[in-house]
């Protein structure tokens, strides 16, 4: 049972650094709020229209902010001396992926705890009555984004031009969770929690499972030297 201990160690360490420096979270928060604002400015102060496309705006803000924070996934390791400090740990190197994935998931979920209410206020949407299904969709969608993102961030770590390579590889891969999360969110907000939304939730679950399995399996190959 050494693996869960090492996964927990990475999560604890990364959260401690995050809490101490607050570098990522505050900038992510500001950035995601700005994305919502920029969209609103670009589309115009037409509240009924904004309300109709709110789910899309919200998830685009999450994906863009996610791209920023995901690209910083291994930054603390690079500053500390590279991934090899972690790779020297005995046992399977997959604990690195699982720990980083959990950290990214927690960070993005924490952001959404603020971002969803902010969108409710900005676009005048009633979210509170749908809090539970929305939380479930947010969890599944964010898990998909983090699963693919944590993997591609490791893959592009030593590429030249990785700032552009991460979005280039990740955005096409994020089409299913984006479509699933946007449509499920919109359907729930329209008061249809058990109708078509279930279809999209199934898509999110399928994506999360497939990507989690494949990425976990391939991870050692992505970080070996």
């Amino acid at each position, binding site marked *: 049972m050494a693996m869960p201990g090492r996964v927990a160690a990475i999560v604890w360490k990364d959260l401690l650094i995050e809490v101490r420096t607050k570098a990522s979270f505050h900038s992510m928060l500001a950035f995601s709020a700005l994305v919502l604002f920029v969209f609103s400015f670009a589309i115009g102060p037409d509240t009924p229209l904004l309300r109709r496309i709110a789910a899309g705006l919200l998830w685009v803000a999450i994906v863009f902010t996610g791209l920023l924070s995901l690209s910083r996934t291994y930054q603390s390791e690079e500053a500390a001396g590279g991934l090899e400090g972690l790779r020297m740990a005995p046992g399977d190197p997959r604990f690195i992926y699982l720990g980083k994935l959990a950290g990214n998931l927690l960070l993005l979920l924490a952001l959404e705890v603020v971002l969803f209410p902010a969108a409710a206020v900005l676009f005048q949407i009633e979210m509170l009555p749908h809090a539970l299904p929305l939380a479930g969709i947010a969890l599944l969608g964010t898990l998909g984004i983090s699963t693919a993102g944590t993997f591609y961030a490791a893959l592009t770590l*030593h590429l030249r031009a990785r700032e552009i*390579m991460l979005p*280039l590889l990740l955005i*096409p891969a994020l*089409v*299913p969770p984006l479509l699933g999360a946007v449509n499920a969110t919109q359907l729930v907000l329209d008061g249809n929690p058990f109708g078509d939304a279930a279809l999209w939730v199934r*898509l999110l679950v399928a*994506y999360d499972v497939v990507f989690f399995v494949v990425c976990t399996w391939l991870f050692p190959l*992505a970080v070996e030297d």
Partner: protein
Amino acid sequence: MGRGASFIGWPGALALVVMAVGSFIGLFVVGADVEMGEVQRLMYVHVPAAWTAFVAFFAVFIGSVLYLVQRDERADRVAASAAEVGVVFISLTLATGMLWGKPTWGVWWTWDPRLTTTALLLAVFVGYLAVRGFADDPERRARWSAIVGILGFVQVPIVYLSVVWWRSIHQPPSSPRSVSSDILGTWMLNFAAFLLVFAWLTARRARAARLEAELETRMAYD
């Protein structure tokens, strides 16, 4: 060298012949479409090109898996070559699809599930080739791009499914009309021609890649 060149030669010649026959049949023998007229003949390029692009994509996947399992540089070179040739076919698919869509649907682009997935497929291919372009070390280049090749292949069915569902919410998906046997026959003939072209180009490209690698090694040690 001579033996390799002749092996490379005959599929090319065969591809040329089959393609000439297929094009002739598609352009002059098969009747024009009842509803859509002459423009429908584009389908004799479009459909086989799309099928060939998927074959190329599958070849990249197989080459990638083989590379990661056996660490054989040949598998890497074949996968990379298939990806380059695949980009050509997928671009041809998109271009002919748009040329056909304008007179038929009145628009260059529509969010048809197959069209959208094809465009995303092109993005995955481009990502695969970009990874190769931005990696310096040959071993890392092969390993990283193989991972992209596998993940790209895995994500295509999910992407397609999600786009189909996305479209069906807004409008019912257009059901394909049944296809007559001479149309299907022409498709298959042209598909065979495109497959030969694909195999021929991929083999040539892989051979060039092998020569490049040999040259690199020789220059590194001399």
